[in-house]
């Protein structure tokens, strides 16, 4: 075929994405392997202090990991109920006109760069809302989490709404025909039917929250701190990588390799969450398509 060269070019374009994944895995593993030659995995996973940049070095990732998940879960604790509520309203109650206004507004929210949320957390949420509530430091997990929850709202809302609208009208009609109110149909018929879709939405939001960098870097703090107190400052996984990148760490040094070990942990967490979400979504679609 005379067109073989064109086809080859297009195929290579498609392969670029595969190469990207291979690149990520190779790069992270290679440097992480170098790291784990010098630091045992056991220490990495169980030591409770993370001080690779100090003189006395400890390489326990727990403080970073716990901060990341604390912030993410706090953010979800706000974003999921509100987002789900918004989704129920938009999918079961709102008229087309109201939807036409609310949905684009939410889409705008989704497009705002995360540095803006970081700014909002540091200059507004922390001093104006949390300080009166007893927060003493300028940085805290809660401050970052609240800003993050606003960022996650459109994601949770639109994915949940998609899941609920995929539930066929016949199920709703059955509910109404049995004398249920709108709320009852929404909560007891549609929501259960859309459950795996909604759970997938939550997992995707969690993955997004775990990987989110700028909000936690700006608002949560730069000192690793293994604590469950949301009003304290702490450093999340991505924030550590930023901290090192802004410094003058020589390539090849142990400190340099730490960012790849941390990056690998981050990648592993988000990959697991995303795969779980895709699996749930596939199961959900099977039922309704």
């Amino acid at each position, binding site marked *: 075929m005379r067109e073989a060269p064109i086809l080859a070019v297009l195929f290579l374009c498609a392969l670029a*994405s595969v190469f990207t994944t291979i690149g990520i895995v190779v790069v992270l593993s290679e440097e992480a392997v170098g790291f784990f030659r010098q630091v045992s995995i056991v220490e990495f996973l169980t030591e409770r202090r993370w001080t690779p940049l100090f003189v006395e070095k400890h390489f326990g990732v727990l403080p970073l990991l716990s901060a990341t998940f604390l912030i993410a879960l706090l953010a979800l604790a706000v974003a999921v109920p509100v987002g789900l509520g918004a989704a129920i309203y938009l999918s079961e109650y709102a008229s087309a006109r109201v939807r036409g206004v609310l949905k684009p507004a939410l889409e705008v929210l989704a497009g705002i*760069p995360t540095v803006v949320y970081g700014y909002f957390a540091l200059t507004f949420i922390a001093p104006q809302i949390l300080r009166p509530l007893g927060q003493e430091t300028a940085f805290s997990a809660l401050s970052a989490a609240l800003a993050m929850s606003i960022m996650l709202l459109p994601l949770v809302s639109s994915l949940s709404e998609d899941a609920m609208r995929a539930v066929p009208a016949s199920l709703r009609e059955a509910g109404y025909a049995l004398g249920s109110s709108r709320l009852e149909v929404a909560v007891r018929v549609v929501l259960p039917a859309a459950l795996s879709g909604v759970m997938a939405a939550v997992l995707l939001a969690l993955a997004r929250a775990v990987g989110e960098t700028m909000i936690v870097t700006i608002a949560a703090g730069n000192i690793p701190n293994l604590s469950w107190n949301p009003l304290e400052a702490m450093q999340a996984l991505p924030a550590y990588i930023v901290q090192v990148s802004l410094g003058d760490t020589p390539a090849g040094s142990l400190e340099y390799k730490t960012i*790849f070990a941390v990056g690998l942990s981050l990648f592993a967490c988000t990959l697991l969450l995303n795969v779980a*979400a895709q699996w749930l979504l596939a199961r959900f679609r099977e039922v309704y398509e």
Partner: protein
Amino acid sequence: MAPGPLPGGVRVTAPILTQTPLGRRHVMRRRIAAAVAEALLRMAAMVGIAALVLLLTVVTRDGFHRLSWDFITSFPSRFPEQAGIRAALLGSIWVMALTTVIAVPLGIGAAIYLEEFAPRNWLTRIIETNINNLAGVPSIVYGLLGLALFVRAMELGRSILAGALTLALVVLPIIIVSGREGLRTVPPSIREAAMALGATRWQTVRHQVLPAALAPMMTGIILALSRAIGETAPLITIGALLFVPFDPRGPLDSFTVLPIQIFNWVSRPQPAFHEAAAAGIIVLLTVLLSMNAIAIAIRYWSERRRQW
């Protein structure tokens, strides 16, 4: 037939519902609960808008007065009153231009391959799953890839080019998805008609499908690129600088971008720098808004023109 024992001793009873009185109080309670619930749900839907309004108000209040022509044309400085976004803005323009040139052809090529040519086999499915997964990888991980591959291995240094290549990888999955969605808006009958005239698949795509799909593709691509403008983490990781007091002159120069400049100012303790950050945010959001408006305008115009 009168109620009462049927032959064989079967009793017919009256239906259950009419035996339970539906008192007015019971109905009232259900109605109030329903109204309260609806109000709560409506509030939930409004939280998003309220937060958006609050955010924009805070930013505008903090930074509007700092906006000026000087702000846009000055370099950053130790003195917050004199700091400007010039280098950052130029850096953003450079990086975005290169990113677009790299990512858009790659992404559209991949989209065309997957949508028009790829056989339905295991390799195609791997590629598609892979793209979905890539869309969920945190952008900072792309930064690590860029650091090891473009900055170090390919020795491009902490340059605009390394930044653009990294950012191109970040937006590639979204561009591919937008490209495929754009191609799907073209009905299959057009492809059939072309092939029945003896056109090869590529001729069909190049002359009929792609021109028809261009506008919807553009909408998605512009939206994807507008996200890229706000990307900070991967560029910090590959070594974009925080303080750049010069104009970048070529793709191998070091650089900074607008969101990084904002981050830099936010990280300083002085409130005056925070105001500069807010002003920078206003500029960033304005650029974003314009790009979104263009994308929506294209979508609107193309849907009106479309005759099928």
